[in-house]
């Protein structure tokens, strides 16, 4: 298991390749990457992610450990950035490796669902009309009832 919380960008491709290469006894590798949407209809200038150093790593480890207990996984990777980001930049990624695709997919979805509303990150958007904190969505909280 690897949990990384960092300010600087990560290289999705390099991380995906290194992750897949580390467990070639696994038949299935799933990655999810979250991106600051660069949407022309939404004039976002910057997104800043605040986090709770210490608790963040602890919460992510707890979520990843729970995923490993629930599914048969060869490995789990979570990378999450904090600090300021521009539209189009990658915010975070998770990767799961498993013998079978169902485990790899479900575990990745589980990680994402929990990471959304149980890991201490907060997003603030800067647009032409000022700054605002992104509100948590009911649907993200509801997604947890699935597990």
């Amino acid at each position, binding site marked *: 298991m690897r949990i990384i919380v960092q300010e600087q960008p990560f290289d999705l491709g390099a991380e995906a390749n290194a992750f897949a290469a580390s467990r070639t006894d696994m038949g299935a590798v799933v990655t999810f990457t979250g991106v600051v949407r660069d949407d022309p209809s939404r004039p976002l200038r910057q997104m800043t992610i*605040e986090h709770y150093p210490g608790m963040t790593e602890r*919460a992510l480890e707890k979520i990843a450990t729970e995923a490993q207990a629930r599914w048969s996984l060869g490995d789990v990777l979570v990378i999450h950035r904090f600090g300021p980001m521009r539209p189009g930049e990658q915010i975070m990624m998770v990767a799961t490796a498993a013998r079978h695709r169902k485990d790899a997919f479900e575990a990745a979805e589980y990680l994402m669902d929990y990471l959304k509303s149980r890991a201490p990150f*907060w997003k603030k958007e800067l647009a032409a009309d000022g700054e605002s904190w992104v509100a*948590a969505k009911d649907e993200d909280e509801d997604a947890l009832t699935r597990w």
Partner: protein
Amino acid sequence: MIDVLYFAWVRERIGVPREQVSTDAATVAELVEELRAREERYALAFSDLKALRVAVDQDLTDFDAPLKGAREVAFFPPMTGG
């Protein structure tokens, strides 16, 4: 003495990211009452507890949680990771 941390708009309303608080509060809820009584900015930040989450020693918990032995309490809005 306990370390009290604030994040996101809670931090902005209170004006500091963390402070040391001298308290005998038995629970998080009691600590919130003490803070609310301090100043308007606290009353404002803690006006709607449903909009807040709390962690004691870096574990998510609820407002009924005991503070005995706790070193660190953090208040923040619902998280928006991912």
